[in-house]
């Protein structure tokens, strides 16, 4: 066995570094994922898929990866992650338009610093709260920020700020001024690198003792406290880390859009969307939120070009995920895989599936009809 291959539980695993191992099928998926990621610009050139939408989706997905640290591990539902995304985006925009900083990387540093500062501040207040209170408190802070930015001349009200240091050209990347399409491409590959590094960092984190401590807090806060874990402090740290991811994503978003306004970055519903991306992709997995991000963003911004009732389309997809794919898209792949394999070997199961779906539909309809009847005519 080489340095990168280990035996564990009778399986050969690919070992990236200490404690970071993948099974064979996971490795294949990971390599495939990387290839697809790097090929996106070419794929979109050859097909009618939108490059911009996928890029945006990845960025929101990155924010959702940060949110998932709280959701999956400390089991806290944040309904205020747009605060970090938006502050990250505005961090870059303020540096570019008020201070004429032209280096894209410096703008990104500004994003991360700003969002971390905000996450540390908000985290201080919310770390002790649980459940719906945590969700609503994060939402409230998010909306206070939104209202503040919307009413502030420094942030140019609802119009927002441009991320073009000289007023017309995008910031420099790696010290060079790129043409428009070159800029988008370089920025995309940079995003992919940031994404991969962020995912590896998150993977490392959740498999570290700190990650376990967060799991412990999520599963039983009282017990965690009485094994000596400073619960509030750790939640606070996790909140701040999660804010770093949000800020990074928001900063890249600013570099991509080159204009930052409050509604698409800071509004409470953006927070909701980031949360829903994590669930949609599968919040029990590391990479799921990214997939959820791409899918949801794609639905939200591309569907209007193809269908008139695009809201309903997105809504139905989400409802279907809740009812039929509770593990999310990525989380359901193993189940779907085994299910398909079983059906291949025993086609009779398919008939049963149809029967199950049919009867549950009938049940749903008749229940709804009964309910309506009772409400309209009363019980008789």
């Amino acid at each position, binding site marked *: 066995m080489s340095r990168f291959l280990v035996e564990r539980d009778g399986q050969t695993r690919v070992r990236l570094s200490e404690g970071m191992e993948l099974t064979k099928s996971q490795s294949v998926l990971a390599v495939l994922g990387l290839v697809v990621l790097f090929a996106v610009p070419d794929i979109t050139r050859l097909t*009618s898929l*939108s*490059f*911009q*939408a996928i890029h*945006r989706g990845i960025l929101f997905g990155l924010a959702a990866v940060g949110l998932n640290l709280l959701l999956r591990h400390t089991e806290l539902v944040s309904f205020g992650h747009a605060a970090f995304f938006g502050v990250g985006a505005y961090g870059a925009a303020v540096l570019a338009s008020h201070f004429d900083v032209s280096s894209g990387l410096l703008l990104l540093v500004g994003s991360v610093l700003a969002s971390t500062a905000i996450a540390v501040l908000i985290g201080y207040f919310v770390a002790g709260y649980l459940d719906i209170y945590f969700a609503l408190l994060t939402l409230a802070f998010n909306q206070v920020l939104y209202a503040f930015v*919307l*009413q502030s001349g420094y942030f*140019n*009200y*609802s*119009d*927002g700020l*441009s991320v*073009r240091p000289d*007023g*017309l050209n*995008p910031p420099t990347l790696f010290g060079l001024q790129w043409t*428009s399409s070159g800029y988008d491409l370089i920025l995309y590959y940079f995003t992919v690198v940031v994404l991969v590094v962020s995912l590896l960092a998150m993977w490392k984190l959740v498999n570290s003792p700190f990650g376990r401590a967060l799991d412990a807090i999520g599963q039983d806060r009282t017990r965690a406290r009485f094994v000596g874990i400073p619960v509030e402090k750790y939640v606070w740290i996790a909140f701040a880390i999660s804010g770093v991811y949000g800020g990074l994503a928001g900063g890249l978003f600013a570099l991509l*859009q*080159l*204009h930052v*306004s409050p*509604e*698409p970055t800071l509004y409470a519903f953006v927070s909701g969307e980031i949360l829903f991306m994590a669930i949609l992709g599968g919040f029990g997995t590391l990479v799921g939120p990214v997939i959820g991000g791409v899918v949801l963003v794609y639905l939200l*911004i*591309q569907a*209007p*070009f193809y269908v008139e009732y695009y809201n309903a389309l997105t809504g139905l997809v989400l409802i279907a995920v809740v009812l039929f794919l509770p593990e999310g898209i990525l989380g359901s792949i193993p189940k779907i895989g085994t299910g398909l394999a079983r059906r291949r070997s025993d086609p009779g199961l398919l008939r049963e599936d149809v029967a199950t779906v049919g009867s549950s539909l009938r049940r749903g309809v008749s229940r709804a009809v009964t309910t309506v009847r009772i409400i309209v005519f009363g019980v008789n």
Partner: protein
Amino acid sequence: MTTGPTTAADSGGIDRRTLLKTVGGSALAVALAGCTELLEDGEDSLADADVPDEPIESGLQTFTEGAPSVLGVQAQYGAETAVRRINENGGIAGREMNLDVVEEGGAYLTNYQQFVDEGKDVTFGPISSSGHAEMVPEIEAQEVINVSTDGTVTTLYEEDFPDVTYSFRFQNHDVMEALAAVMQAVEVLGADSIDTYAGINPNYAFGQDEMDLFSRGIEALTGAEEVYSGFPDLGTGDMSTHITEVNGEAPDVVFSSCWGGDATLLLEQGHANGMFDAVDLLVGPVLYGSANDLSEDLVDGPIYSGSRNFYWGEPSTDQWSPAADLVSEVEDEYGVVPTAHFMSGYGAVTAWATAAEKAVSLLGRWPEQEELATVLENHGFFTPAGYHTIGADHQGYSNAHFGELTWSDDHDAAALSDVNVFAAKNVSPPPGETSADWIGSW
């Protein structure tokens, strides 16, 4: 400078010979001006031009649903009407034109990018001023011409993007309607009778821009003092606080750039709270945008509204029938009275289409984006609203309309009476000067 309206003859009363001379006799330009009856059979000078066969693909982003669709759907109707007229007249240099429409809300940049990805030859819209500001650099980078329907904040081309190539704006900008409002107020009440003024404007760049320009203008002309300025949220459900404050101050003039549902709300709550007893005059540049949603009792009172660069009764119909023809066509087709936002869509398409045709006749082939952009600069053309030019600053200039809000039983919609027509040069700064400097020099 001249204050006050110009006469109709100056602006719109135009005879056939002048028209044909100005538009170069092009069938398309005449059709879009709404004067097909002026056409005589003649040879098509573009018949020999080297033009591709496939249709022109274009995209419009506008507000198609929700509260702002009051304006957005009008723009959509306008653009569709222009495209229909183009195709009925054999297209642009023989090319048919297709138009895709998409909801603009919150997705300005991605919409434009998607249009470009789809290979659109030209894009139109948006209505939103912030959306427009967001798009301009992207348009310059992608190099596909966009003619904005509205998005009228004055500083866009004056300060933020003074040197653009591919980004244009058809509709009059804020300074024109804010100053038209000032002059209208002065005309109605007299400069000496205006001592105090107040404002209720939507809380975003457009509302702030309009209020700022109105304040500068009215203070310069009358020396009036601002007693209250409130900025309710765009799309708010309740303005009573601001109305209560205005009533308390009882200013001579209230200025409001509220539009769509906000305009209706202002009039509803204004009436309910007795605002029109407390103040002498309300001037609102875009109140008329809600013409189809106002009821008879709402327009009752000292209320004057602007109608941007188009009011269907102007130029007055006995001299200029295209406007009247357009009203009946739109009422038949869509069941609404066309407002200035209809013209935003109609004019944006017309500006581009007439310029494209001009370019073909100059070049003998279909123009590149850059060539077409060059032709669009200082391009003059007619619509049923009259004559328009796109300035060297890429801003559209045409007459600004203002009149008293009344009720028309004929159209079962709000109407304007005693419409004043302000020539562009009277309500906007000369080239190279910013609005603020120009008003400061009065």
